[in-house]
């Protein structure tokens, strides 16, 4: 397919990696680069990109899996809505997330109405087709996902659909990056910035953070050439003692992002303080429905109350999300915890770091 195979050119990948290795040799010390997008985590694992580089490059994964970063209190709202008898519409990777010994998939087995949707637009169509039912969408995702839900809320208004509500658990990437770079134990030397979040928000939201912490950062696409080239660009900045935001994914990411999508987010949502699994509470890192859209808020309308649940014993998902531990550091990885029997959310979603390692066969 066009613009796919070309960016998988193995020869080119190798040549760029060689250049990156020269830079790694010049740097000498260990270099830690974090990718903050679950799709990058998957691509790095699937194409075996770690194996291309000298040993002093440590590629770590950050909080790029939306399901994984959603705290238990957030999941509890979705479970409550289902148990109240609402019809829950959710992306497939939520179904097997373990929560207090339950999962949405188990609840569905018990007869609760839980539907997997590919797009939030499917939920709108279902709500229109079945006006007697009350639908609740699980709003999980980053800046790539929240504008879609914003457009659905506006579309509901236009079409006078009132039996579709939202649990807004959306999270914002730049405040999480700030929190990670601030952490004293992580020592991140460079950031591979998410391609599709950046497609929406553009380059500017990263500039202040990169200046503040002096960490090179490169926005990149999802093919091997993209990822390896972004690593080379970060290393080059390190050698030249620079720290700026560069954009490798120029074929898709415009400097100003997607202004229409940004307007949609701003029209429907407002930033609020929010909790992340593994990172704790981060100021203005979540999105809540604005007051004028309160009638779409499932939490208000149905009086849902967040419930805490303890993390599964031995699960390091929280530390995996912040990059301080690897899946292979977890005693349960590949033994008790597998995609068929996930103990923590990092093994459930295909974007989760533990699942990405598992499918790539990392022992």
């Amino acid at each position, binding site marked *: *397919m*066009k*613009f*796919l195979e*070309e*960016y998988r050119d193995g020869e*080119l990948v190798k*040549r*760029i990696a060689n*250049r990156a290795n020269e830079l790694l040799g010049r740097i000498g010390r260990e270099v830690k680069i974090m990718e903050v997008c679950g*799709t990058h985590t*998957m691509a790095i694992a699937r194409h075996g990109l770690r194996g291309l580089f000298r040993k002093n490059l440590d590629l770590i994964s950050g909080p790029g899996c939306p399901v994984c970063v959603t705290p238990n209190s957030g999941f509890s709202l979705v479970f409550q809505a289902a148990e109240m008898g609402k019809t829950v519409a959710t*992306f497939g990777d939520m179904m097997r997330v373990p929560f207090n010994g339950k999962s949405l998939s188990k609840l569905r087995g018990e007869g609760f109405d839980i539907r997997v949707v*590919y*797009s*939030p*637009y*499917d939920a709108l169509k279902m709500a229109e087709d079945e006006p007697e039912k009350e639908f609740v969408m699980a709003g999980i*995702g980053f800046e*790539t*996902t929240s*504008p*879609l839900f914003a*457009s659905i809320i506006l*579309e509901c208004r236009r079409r006078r659909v009132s039996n579709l509500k939202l649990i807004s658990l959306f999270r914002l990437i730049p405040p999480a990056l700030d929190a990670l770079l601030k952490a004293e134990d992580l020592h991140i030397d460079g950031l591979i910035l998410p*391609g*599709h979040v950046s*497609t*929406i928000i553009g380059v500017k939201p990263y500039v202040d953070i990169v200046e503040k912490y002096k960490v090179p950062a490169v926005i990149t*696409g*999802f093919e091997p*050439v993209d990822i390896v*080239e972004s690593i080379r660009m970060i290393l080059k900045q390190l050698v030249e003692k620079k720290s700026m935001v560069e954009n490798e994914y*120029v*074929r*898709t*990411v*415009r400097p100003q992002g*997607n202004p*229409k*999508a940004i307007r*949609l987010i701003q029209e429907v949502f407002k930033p609020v303080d929010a909790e992340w699994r593994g990172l704790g509470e981060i100021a203005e890192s979540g999105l809540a429905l604005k007051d004028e859209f309160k009638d779409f808020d499932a939490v208000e309308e149905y009086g849902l109350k967040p419930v805490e649940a303890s993390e599964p014993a031995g699960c390091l998902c929280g530390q995996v999300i912040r990059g301080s531990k690897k899946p292979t550091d977890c005693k349960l990885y590949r033994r008790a915890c597998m995609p068929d029997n996930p103990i923590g959310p990092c093994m459930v979603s295909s974007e989760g770091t533990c699942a990405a390692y598992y499918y790539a066969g990392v022992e």
Partner: protein
Amino acid sequence: MCLGIPGRVEEVEGAEATVSFGGIRRRVRLDLLDNVSIGDYVVVHAGFAIEVLDEETALEMLNTLREVFRE
């Protein structure tokens, strides 16, 4: 389909398009974009086109990389 695979727009009807991903066709919402035309390559996330791929830039960059990392 959220893996960033660009699909080719085959038909546009109002707020929706039919997009082909290497032969697999899907209905895609266009609410996030203005001026999508037949033949454009779009990046799709959860059933919505989020950006039009700039073909010229895509090829230019590949050529540059191939040039720079030749030997």
